[in-house]
C-alpha cells in the first residue's frame, strides 16, 4: 500500500535497467519501501547486489517489451509472488531515428515503444483495478507532443504511448488505480549519451523528483522541467515553417 505521503511499499520497473527508472525508485526510497522488482530482458545480466534502494529487497524478473503476448501473464506472476503493486513504472523504450529507407527498424521501434506500452500498460491497469489502488507511471516524452522531421518515428511512438496513457487514466478514474504520464524534454542519460544537449534539457534526477512530486500530489501529467508545459503549449501552435526551422 502507498501511505498518506505516497511512499510505496512495492515498486515494479518495466524496463528495469533504465537510468530514469532507477532514479525514480531512488526518489521513492523511504522506511516504507520494501520490495523493488526490476523487469528486464536478461535478469542474469543485472547485478542486483550492486543496486541499493534504501532497505528494499531487489528482485529481477524476465520481461521483453516487444513480447506482448506474455505481458498479461508476467504481471499476474509478479502480483502472485510479490503481492500488491503500489507503483509500476513503464520505463522501457528505445531511441532511434530510422528514415525513409528503414521501415523495418521503424516498425521495431513502434513495436517496443508503442505496442509494448499498450500491452504491458493494459496488463498493469487490470491488476491495479483488481487490487483497487496503485499508480502506473508512464515515461512519455515531449517528442510526442509535436513530431519533428529529425526523429518523427520515435516521436510518433511517444505520441501514441502518451495518448494511450492519458486515455487509460480516464478509463481508470474512480477505480482506485491511477496513471501518471511524464513528459520530459531532453534527458541526459546513458540512452542519450553523446548526443548534444537540447534547450530545456534535464537530468534523470530532475525527472525522478518531478515524478515523486506528481505522485504525492496525485497529478495525472507532469512535464520536466515544468516550464515545458508552457513552451509546448505555444510550440504546438507555431506555424509549420517556424517549427521546421526550430528542428536542428
Amino acid at each position, binding site marked *: *500500500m*502507498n*501511505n*498518506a*505521503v*505516497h*511512499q510505496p*511499499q512495492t515498486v515494479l520497473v518495466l524496463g528495469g535497467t533504465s537510468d530514469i527508472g532507477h532514479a525514480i525508485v531512488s526518489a521513492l526510497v*523511504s*522506511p*516504507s519501501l520494501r520490495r523493488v522488482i526490476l523487469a528486464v530482458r536478461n535478469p542474469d545480466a543485472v547485478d542486483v547486489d550492486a543496486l541499493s534502494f534504501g532497505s528494499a529487497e531487489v528482485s529481477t524478473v524476465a520481461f521483453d517489451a516487444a513480447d506482448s503476448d506474455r505481458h498479461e501473464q508476467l504481471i499476474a506472476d509478479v502480483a502472485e509472488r510479490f503481492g*500488491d503493486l503500489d507503483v509500476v513504472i513503464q520505463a522501457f523504450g528505445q531511441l532511434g531515428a530510422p528514415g525513409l529507407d528503414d521501415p523495418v527498424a521503424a516498425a521495431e521501434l513502434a513495436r517496443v515503444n508503442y505496442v509494448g506500452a499498450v500491452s504491458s500498460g493494459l496488463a498493469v491497469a487490470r491488476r491495479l*483495478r*483488481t*487490487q*483497487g*489502488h496503485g499508480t502506473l507511471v508512464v515515461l512519455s516524452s515531449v517528442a510526442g507532443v509535436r513530431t519533428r522531421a529529425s526523429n518523427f518515428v520515435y516521436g510518433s511512438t511517444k505520441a501514441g504511448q502518451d495518448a494511450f496513457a492519458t486515455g487509460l487514466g480516464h478509463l481508470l478514474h*474512480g*477505480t*482506485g*488505480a491511477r496513471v501518471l504520464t511524464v513528459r520530459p524534454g531532453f534527458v541526459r542519460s546513458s540512452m542519450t549519451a553523446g548526443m548534444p544537449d537540447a534547450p530545456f534539457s534535464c537530468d534523470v534526477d530532475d525527472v525522478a523528483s518531478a515524478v515523486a*512530486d506528481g505522485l*504525492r*500530489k*496525485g497529478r495525472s501529467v507532469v512535464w520536466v522541467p515544468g516550464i515545458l508545459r508552457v513552451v509546448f503549449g505555444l510550440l504546438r501552435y507555431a506555424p509549420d515553417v517556424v517549427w521546421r526551422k526550430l528542428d536542428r
Partner: protein
Amino acid sequence: MRTRQLELSGWGRTAPSAARFVDVGADELDGTVLDELAEPRGIIARGMGRAYGDPAQNAGGTVVRLARGPIVLDSRAGTVHVGAGVSLDELLRHIVPRGFFVPVSPGTRFVTVGGAIASDIHGKNHHADRTFGAHVDAMTILLADGSRRAITPASDPALWWATIGGMGLTGIVLDATVRLLPIETSRCLVLTERVPNLDSLLERMETGDHLHRYSVAWVDMVATGAHLGRAVLTRGDHASYDQLVAERPAAGDDPLAFAPLGLAAVPTGMPNVLNRLAVRAFNELWYRKAPSSHLGLESITGFFHPLDMVGDWNRLYGRGGFLQYQFVVPFDAVDTLRTIVATVAASGHASFLAVLKRFGPESGGLLSFPTPGWTLTLDLPAAVAGLGGLVGELDRMVLDAGGRHYLAKDATATPEIIRAGYPRLDEWLQIRRTVDPTGRWISDQARRLDLY
C-alpha cells in the same frame, strides 16, 4: 442491502482506494452473505469515516457500513444498549436531555459506537476515566465464520481485549452495552488559561489536571524561541444544576437542553488555505484573544466538539489532504516532547493548533493506544514536499523515548514502527489468527502494517 463501487479515503483525504461499499443491517449479515462479501479481498467495517488514514478502507475488497440500530436507555442502571452503527451525535441527542453523557467523547460527535470501540477512543477525560472501551460492559460481535457471539470481559477475555482497540480486525461489533455518566446539566464549567510557554504548560497540567474531569491544551506549533509551546489550557467539569442557575438563572428551566447546530460547510474544490502564513496569523490571533484566565459556562458542543460546527472542515487542506500525527511518550520523556515541538516549529511545516493531553492508565486493549504519558496531536498538510522526512524523524524520536502511535490517526507508519510501539502485538496477532484464520477481516492499514 445496497452495494456501490466507491473510492474511499479517511478523514485526512490521503491514499484513496476503491472498494465495494455495502450498506447493510446488522440482522442481514449471516454466513452466506459473509461468504459472498469476503470475495475476493476480504471485508472491513466503516462507520463515519473519521479515522484519518486508511483503517476503514479495503482496496479491491468490501467495506460494510452498518445501519444505525437501536438506542435503549436504562436510566436506572445508567447504561445504554446501542447498535454499533449509531453515532455519538445520535446517542447524545437521545441521552443528554434524559440526564446522561457518554463516558468518553472524542473531539467530534461524528463517530459510531462501533468505531469508538474498534479504535478504543479517548477524550479530554482520559487521565480520570481512561478510554471508551473501559466503559463497555458487553457486546455482540460477528465473527469470520458468520456466527454471532455475545461477549463480556469475563466471558471471553482474549477476544474482548483484542477487539477493544483492534481496528475491526477481529470481527464486526454489532451492538454494545455502555455505562453512561449521569449529568445534571448540559453545560460545562470551564477554566480557560493562557500559558506563555511549554515548560509552564507541562508544570500546570502536572499539578492541576487531577482537579478536573476534563483537561486539554491547544498548543501553538508555529511559535518559536521564548514562545515555544505557548498554549491555551482548558479544564472543566460538568456543571451542576446549582452552578448553572447561579450563572444563568434562565437556563434553569431547561438545564439539559441539547440541540447542536452545524453552522456551515466548507465547499468542495478548496485549495489548501492552511499554509504556514495563514496558520501563523490564526494562531497569533487565537492566542491573543484567549483570556489570561477565565472561568465560565460552555455548551457541550463548544467545549467538546468545536470543529463539528464547521461541516467538512477537512476540505480546508485542499485536495492534497492532511495528516493527523498523534503519539504518546512516557511522562519522563519531557525532553523528547520539547525536542519534537521545536523540530516541528523549525521545520517550516505548518501545524494548525496542536493538542496536548496527559493520559492516565491503560484500558487493557492489546492494541489500545493510550498509555500513561504525554500525547501530542499535530495536523500537517500532506502534499508538502519533505513531510515524509519530518514524520520519519518524529517517529524515531517517539520510539526512542518508549512511545507509540495511534492507529486511528496513523497514515504513514511501517510495520516496524507499530511493532516497536505495541509490546503486546504478537499476543493480539495470535488471537486474531485464531478467530479469523483465513484473514477475512482486512483493511488497507492492516495490509500496510502487516496486521494479519
